[in-house]
């Protein structure tokens, strides 16, 4: 038992060492502590020009407009008129579908992309040889309930597509070169990083702030952070997002459009049946056509005019010589 005894001197030395260690740890923790949570967010920002997923243009095949009430039939025809999904998707491609999943509302009120449409587009991608099809959005409401209540989660399950629910590590601070608003701002980057192709899918809606919400506005769902601050400059952020993302293909679902009380609506009374599906490589042109269904001209939507000036597309969709077809029920 004598081995256990320590001298008074040893005791003080050990106590001093322990005390110094504790004090050093506390000082270090104090130096490392950041009281402002905003400063804890990633500081490194990727400066990028654009994320280009587009394919080579084919003369006379830039936009198709198909009428009919069956979404699955009309979208199939619309894509076929542009050369078929194999023009856009190559075997082995990973594809990201970016629908509007903004609200936890049922599909019947058309505030979000319709699950039947998403299912069909995913199927077309798989038929063209896609290796994987992902679906993502950063909804206004709780993401999980949005994907479930809009029935997009079940549609994805049926066709083998994978839902990517936004997580913090999916966002990356991004600065778009030349942008005034997208500066060191969190973008839902990870799903975009791991795919070869991106397809935007949107509905046609009245929107109290941006007048109309369609394909270009739909990229708003890639923004993270407190994005509501951009509502003060909604046209500019819509245009910057269109600069940021150059999609492979866009599909505008105007089977039923929300003509009032947008963007949430809430009742079928807010809808008008227009039985039209638009597929395009030019989202400015597709939105310009969509605006006409809401009784608007491109000039009524400042973001369309600005986008055209930046060369992102044309508001004169007729100049692209749209390919028309009708799918009978």
């Amino acid at each position, binding site marked *: 038992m004598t*081995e256990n005894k320590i001298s008074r001197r040893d005791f003080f030395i050990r106590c001093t060492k322990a005390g110094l260690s504790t004090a050093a740890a506390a000082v270090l923790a104090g130096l490392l502590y950041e009281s402002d949570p905003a400063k804890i967010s990633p500081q490194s920002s990727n400066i990028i020009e654009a994320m280009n997923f587009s394919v080579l243009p084919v003369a006379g095949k830039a936009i198709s407009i198909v009428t009919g009430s069956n979404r699955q039939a009309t979208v199939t025809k619309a894509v076929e008129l542009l050369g078929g999904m194999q023009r856009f998707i190559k075997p082995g491609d990973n594809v990201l579908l970016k629908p509007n999943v*903004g*609200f*936890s*509302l*049922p599909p*019947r*009120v058309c505030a979000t992309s319709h699950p039947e449409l998403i299912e069909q587009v995913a199927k077309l991608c798989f038929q063209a040889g896609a290796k994987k099809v992902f679906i993502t959005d*950063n909804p*206004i*409401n*709780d*993401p*999980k*309930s949005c994907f479930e*209540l809009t029935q997009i989660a079940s549609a994805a399950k049926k066709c083998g597509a994978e839902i990517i*629910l*936004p*997580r*913090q*590590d*999916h*966002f990356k601070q991004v600065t778009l070169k030349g942008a005034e608003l997208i500066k060191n701002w969190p973008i839902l980057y990870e799903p975009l990083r791991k795919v070869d192709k991106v397809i935007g899918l949107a509905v046609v809606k009245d*929107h*109290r*702030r*941006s007048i109309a*919400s369609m394909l270009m506005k739909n990229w708003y769902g890639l923004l*993270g952070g407190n994005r*509501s601050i951009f*509502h003060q400059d909604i046209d500019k952020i819509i245009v910057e997002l269109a600069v940021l993302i150059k999609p492979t293909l866009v599909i505008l679902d105007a089977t039923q459009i929300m003509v*009032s*009380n*947008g*963007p*949430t609506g*809430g*009742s*079928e*009374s*807010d809808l008008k049946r227009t039985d039209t599906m638009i597929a395009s490589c030019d989202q400015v042109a597709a939105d310009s056509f969509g605006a006409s269904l809401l009784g608007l001209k491109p000039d009524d939507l400042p973001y369309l005019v600005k986008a055209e000036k930046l060369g992102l597309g044309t508001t004169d969709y007729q100049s692209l010589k749209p390919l028309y077809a009708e799918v009978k029920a």
Partner: protein
Amino acid sequence: MPYKSSRNQSHTIISYIIVIALVVVFIAILIKQKHYYVSDASIAEKNVAANRPATSQPPSWLSEQLFGDDFKPANNVENYNADNLYEKIDGKADLYLQNGFVSLQCKRYSSKSSEQNWAEVYVYDMAKTKNAFAVYSGQKRTGRKSLDWAQFGYKTTDSIYIAAGNFYFEIILSADSNELLHSAEAGAKQLAALASKVPCEPFAIGFFPQDNLAADSYRLIGKDAFGCEGMDNIFTAIYHIDGNDLTAYIADMNDDNSANILFEKYHKFLIENGGKELANTALPDSKAVELFGTTDILFCYKNYFAGVRGSGTVGDLTNLAISFKNSLSGTKNDRK
């Protein structure tokens, strides 16, 4: 010495166990951080918002039993304030924020027999009756059917909308189902009854006479009513009298002087646009002007500017104006 060796060995083992445990905890924290669910932040914010006091909102709007025994709550109550309303209704938030919005409570109820059948209830605290009416009248749906038990309320095949007291209620249904609509209407009645218990200030619409009043005809004209610049926030109601539609209107001004200023402004507007002053009507302190076949009889009562207009006979318009002014003066709930 063997004793010491054995003791050192056991210390070493314990040390390893502690180190391994710390490594496990460290890895667990890393994994948890990596899979941090982004919406958790907004959920946390919603919970913070839930603890913020609303102006006049009782705590039990969205009870478990709101939709009866056949329904169960499908989520917890969500709470929003002016800072985060956008998170629930996006661009439509502006309409509410411009009209005095205080808070929103939401909850979803699903049918016990089929979870596909659900209803989501929105309770907007708008602080004042006129604010609640403003958002109600600003987004009326086509194909609506008035609720005969509510002063301001209607339903469509898949939703219900009510303004009651300081509150505006919406019930959104997942399906076009009579059963669902019936249950939702019962819930809406409960909400309206609760709203009626919350004290609220007098509301100009309450002064419109009830005789010959067309159902569901109340409106709020937010800006430049009848083409007159600056004539804002005018409540109107339609009356069917002798085959003509006559419009009664009223503005709740801050004080008597403001009401008189608006009175003079509108009178001047009518005259400057070619209106013809008519001989004084049987209503004291009123003015009557005929312009392009439409006659206006306008008057003030305390802080209210009011009038009637239409292409009916001057006699009918005068009678309606007298009835309207009597309603204003006879009531005891004006603010003076």
